[in-house]
């Protein structure tokens, strides 16, 4: 099986020059296909923006909200995108600390994904509030009314966590880019050369620069690691800190973090598979990488599956009538279809990855990653909507169905994400030049030397 499984194994590692050449080749002069794609994405984005403006003008009522379900598709999507973001930081920061070599080829893509995913997620709390024009009131800024904000509210924690996450992951991405941009600068021509000359911030790779750079990068990674864990924990506390049956549970933080990384890894695969084809970087992003990603998916998938089981178990074991009712409703109530989509996509399909055949079969992985993305969106939908629709007060129970406005804005959010990713992929190296070089030993004169 090894023989068929590792076709690219025997090939010699690329030289530094090849690396620079191949990866710089992915930049500049996009094809017609690229522009068509970008155009389509912008069109969808425009629809999303239109829907949002309509909602702001007429009122939240145009969304499908049906009390008691006061949070719906928007918060679901917010959690979804924040989750996506997480695996980027995992690969770029946590694996960096673990010194795992295979990350170098894929971490740039993952990290870019992180930044854009957070940029997308950050929009949704705004989209969902009733008075978006006052959303800035959540920021503790000095004001003539002498009002401050309520730091006891998990929403405030969100504000801080997500903002911090956006800033830190963005700087992390930029810092990582500097040496690459420098090397691209030295081969690029025309206006791009100017662009890179500026964005390289005068990088030349001197001994002193590397000295401070490496330290700084190390500590950024060291910070990003607890950050990534904290952010989704805080998001999960939006729910866990409430008293809603189905939300109010201590398992949420680890459960959400695992789920986040799980969904993020799936999204990375969804992005990498086409990317390596289009950019012809199969040589750098190999089946080995996918195999490793798949293993991570399997790990986090197992954690998520376990969390599902424990949730249902605790609902029964707690003896709490409301919890029991809530989870019974989850599995067999109005929204059974959502729950079972979630369970099948996240709870069963991923375990196919136990088979190396599937782990190393890229089309299969791609398909699987799509299922996981779907499943994870539904996980949030189930947790948020289904729990709310079946709460304490039987007389006040209701059934929520999203409206076209919500679907349009959801589609718009994907367009927004892919717009940024497309722009990035054509203008900055999506595979880290420097770090790929880093793991390939520099040529030596001869063995004689020590």
């Amino acid at each position, binding site marked *: 099986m090894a023989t068929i499984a590792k076709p690219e194994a025997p090939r010699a590692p690329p030289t530094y020059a090849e690396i*620079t050449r191949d990866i710089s080749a992915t930049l500049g002069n996009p094809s017609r296909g690229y522009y068509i794609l970008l155009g389509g994405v912008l069109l969808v984005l425009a629809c999303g923006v239109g829907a949002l403006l309509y909602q702001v003008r007429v009122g939240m009522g145009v969304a499908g909200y049906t009390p008691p379900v006061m949070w719906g598709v928007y918060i679901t999507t917010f959690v979804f995108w924040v989750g996506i973001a997480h695996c980027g930081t995992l690969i770029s920061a946590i694996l960096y600390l673990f010194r795992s070599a295979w990350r170098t080829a894929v971490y740039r893509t993952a990290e870019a994904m992180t930044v854009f995913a957070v940029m997308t997620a950050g929009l949704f709390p705004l989209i969902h509030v009733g008075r978006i024009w006052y959303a800035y009131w959540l920021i503790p800024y000095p004001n003539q009314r002498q009002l401050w904000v309520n730091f006891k509210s998990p929403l405030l924690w969100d504000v801080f966590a997500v903002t911090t996450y956006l800033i830190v992951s963005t700087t992390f991405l930029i810092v990582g880019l500097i040496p690459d941009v420098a090397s691209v600068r030295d081969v690029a021509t025309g206006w791009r050369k100017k662009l890179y000359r500026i964005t390289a911030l005068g990088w030349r790779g001197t001994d002193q620069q590397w000295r*401070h750079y490496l330290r700084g990068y190390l500590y950024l990674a060291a910070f990003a690691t607890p950050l990534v864990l*904290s952010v989704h924990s805080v998001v999960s506390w939006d729910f866990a800190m409430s008293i809603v049956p189905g939300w109010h549970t201590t398992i949420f933080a680890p459960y959400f973090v695992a789920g986040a990384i799980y969904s993020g890894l799936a999204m990375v695969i969804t992005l990498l598979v086409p990317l390596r084809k289009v950019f012809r970087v199969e040589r750098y992003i190999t089946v080995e990488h996918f195999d490793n990603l798949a293993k991570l998916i399997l790990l986090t998938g197992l954690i998520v599956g376990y969390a599902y089981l424990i949730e249902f178990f605790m609902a029964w074991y707690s003896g709490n009538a409301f919890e029991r009712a809530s989870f019974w409703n989850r599995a067999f109530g109005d929204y059974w279809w959502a729950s079972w989509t979630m369970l099948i996509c996240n709870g069963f399909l991923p375990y196919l990855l136990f088979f190396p055949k599937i782990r190393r079969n890229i089309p299969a992985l791609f398909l699987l990653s799509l299922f996981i993305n779907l499943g994870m969106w539904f996980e949030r939908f189930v947790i948020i909507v289904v729990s709310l629709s079946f709460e304490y007060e039987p007389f006040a129970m209701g059934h929520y169905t999203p409206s076209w406005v919500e679907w349009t804005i959801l589609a718009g959010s994907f367009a927004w994400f892919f717009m940024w990713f497309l722009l990035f992929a054509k203008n900055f190296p999506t595979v880290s030049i420097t770090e790929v070089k880093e793991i390939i030993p520099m040529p030596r004169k001869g063995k004689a030397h020590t």
Partner: protein
Amino acid sequence: MRAPPSGLLAAYRHVDAAVHAIRSLKEMGYRDFTVYSPAPNYEIAEAVGHRVSPVRLWTLFGGLAGCAAGFAMTLWMSYDYPIIVGGKPLGSVIPYVVIAFELTILIGALSTICGMIFHVWRSHRTAHYDPRSTDDHIGIFVPCPIERRPAVEQLLRTSGAEEVRVEI
């Protein structure tokens, strides 16, 4: 920016050669040369022999400042605008830990960046530069007056420089 001093710029293909050159330069008593490499390299760093970068201090103090700021802000604001909610104490430290934690990371990370920029700027030496050294060459620039050039050039060539240029 003032013009870089005149000197010799050598380009190496092989890391061991470059490392050898660096060592012998130091033996000759040279300190102010600059080494360019396309990727960070342990051997080179060791040969040049810098002490650990002081950036970590920025990280430490940034982090501490952030943490303190977090607690200070939340507690002060709670008492400056004392609103009772859910029958909880005005200053509830436990939930404020979250804010403090996030600010620790935010300010810590930002100050790390500042530290990096600051120290890179301080240790900056104007020197001649060969673009190939971000691709696959290791460059060494040794600023030296005309009278000492032959010796240095000799050294660089023997250590296996692919090319040695005189830069005025």
